[in-house]
């Protein structure tokens, strides 16, 4: 459904952030993109949704295809109309708009007002808690509610592919579980394809079908989610488990660090 062919992204004509990222998101699946801070995960998402231009970035090589057509030179609003929606890192609600207005703003590309109203109700069935606080200025919602609102807002454009940037950031574990449960339901019930960017690798791998690992602007590892979960390097560097699979104990921390196998 979505394919990135070795894209290279340069900011300000000089800073090379992505050095050949390839990615394939098949229809109806959850694909996760893992990586540490500064690996280029958010940049990858912005390259897809066409927002690089607003940050003076540019896709200089490679191509991005969505359902067979190239989208890497198109305006963000065209890309939304094609059925791609992005949920930003850090929630980024429209603070001074209430929850309902946030949802309506998310449906900006939908001209059919009756459909928009139905969609608001549909989103509220997934996030009943938002229904209770629908006319509160979104800046005053709790962190979890804001994240739900951000996802709901993303759904309002009726996307075929939803991209989420660290939806677990700064949330209590129970809320994170709830939100990830909803993501799974969206895949199963609404057949929304999901591209999930996460730092919380074990969580992301637990609901994803496939995963990619991004490091220093390159894809260093890819595979089925369950296989990645078993990979020794992933366990060591992203899941915090020792080689035996048990939780790491600080008593026998080694004085040297394991060398990432993909670096050799």
């Amino acid at each position, binding site marked *: 459904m979505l394919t990135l062919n070795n894209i290279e992204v340069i900011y300000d004509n000089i800073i090379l952030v992505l050095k050949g990222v390839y990615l394939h998101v098949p229809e109806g699946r959850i694909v996760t993109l893992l990586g540490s801070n500064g690996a280029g995960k958010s940049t990858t998402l912005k390259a897809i949704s066409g927002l690089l231009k607003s940050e003076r970035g540019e896709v200089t090589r490679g191509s991005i295809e969505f359902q067979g057509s190239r989208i890497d030179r198109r*305006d963000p609003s065209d890309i939304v109309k094609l059925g791609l929606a992005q949920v930003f890192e850090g929630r980024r609600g429209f603070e001074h*708009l209430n929850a309902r207005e946030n949802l309506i*703003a998310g449906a*900006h590309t939908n001209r059919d007002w009756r459909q928009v109203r139905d969609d608001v109700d549909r989103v509220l069935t997934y996030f009943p808690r938002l229904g209770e606080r629908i006319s509160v200025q979104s800046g005053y919602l709790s962190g979890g509610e804001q994240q739900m609102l951000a996802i709901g807002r993303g759904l309002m454009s009726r996307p075929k592919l939803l991209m989420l940037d660290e939806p677990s950031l700064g949330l209590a574990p129970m809320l994170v579980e709830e939100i990830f449960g909803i993501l799974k339901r969206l895949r199963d019930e609404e057949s929304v394809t999901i591209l999930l960017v996460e730092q919380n690798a074990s969580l992301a791998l637990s609901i994803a079908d496939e995963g990619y690992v991004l490091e220093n602007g390159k894809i260093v590892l890819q595979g089925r989610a369950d296989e990645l979960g078993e990979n020794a390097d992933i366990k060591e560097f992203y899941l915090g488990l020792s080689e035996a699979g048990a939780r790491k104990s600080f008593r026998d921390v080694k004085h040297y660090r394991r060398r990432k196998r993909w670096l050799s």
Partner: protein
Amino acid sequence: MYYVELMLNGLLVGSLYSIVALGFVLIYKASEVINFAQGEFVMFAGYVIAFWILSLDFNIVVAAFLALVVMVLVGLLVEWAVLRHLIGRPVVAVIMATIGLASFLQGTAQLLFGVETRTVPLPIDDYPIFIGDLLLNRIELVAAVFAGLGFAAVGWFFVKSRYGIALRAIADDQQVSLAMGINVKTFFGIAWAIAGVVALVGGVFWGNASGVDTQLALIGLKVFPVVILGGLDSIIGALVAGLIIGLVESLAAGFLDPLVGGGTKDLTPYVLMILVLMFKPYGLFGEKIIERV
């Protein structure tokens, strides 16, 4: 009785302050920029409508409609030629651009329409209305009605319509708005076009009261305490603050001037503004910055 009359007349003049202040608020709401050329917009609108009526002998309705079209075009043109290229640049750069724009509009208006002062003639009797013993200026009454209509329309647009929601969304977060498929440039254009139209209401009635020449642009400065008092991004704030300032000015002129020998009318709005800012730094109705701790 004298007291009530002062208050009523103050409110009527205040409604005209409000509508000019609304122009500032519109631009600030959409793009967080103070448009220092708003007074020049009013002046330009005055020139345009005076030109249609005096030089081409159009009747007032046709002239107003044509002026409306011109002001929409001016608004769009300004956005397209100047502001669009400054999206994402430091606010100071944008403010300087609007100051430059002010000079440009003054020059262009004089080049196109000449330098002599003219008055926008209105087909309204200037014989005052008497309500009991109260004496009211007929033209100011009509002006207040138009200002009220302007506020109702703009208020509805911002609060209820989808486009208003989109505009407010842009004010909160441009990048996310882009990702929602909102065309930020188009909406800035819309905001500037509306600001142009709003300036027309001011231009017609101020142009009638004090004549159209480059002095008319000073209304922008005159209205500035209103904008700050009400809160830079509040429509209702512009309305209320305009009325308050009109009221205070009128009362000051009536009661304080005889005591000190004049001049308090121009002073009081600023004193009031400073007082309010001490207690409410966002103005009476300004949006607070929401911070989560």
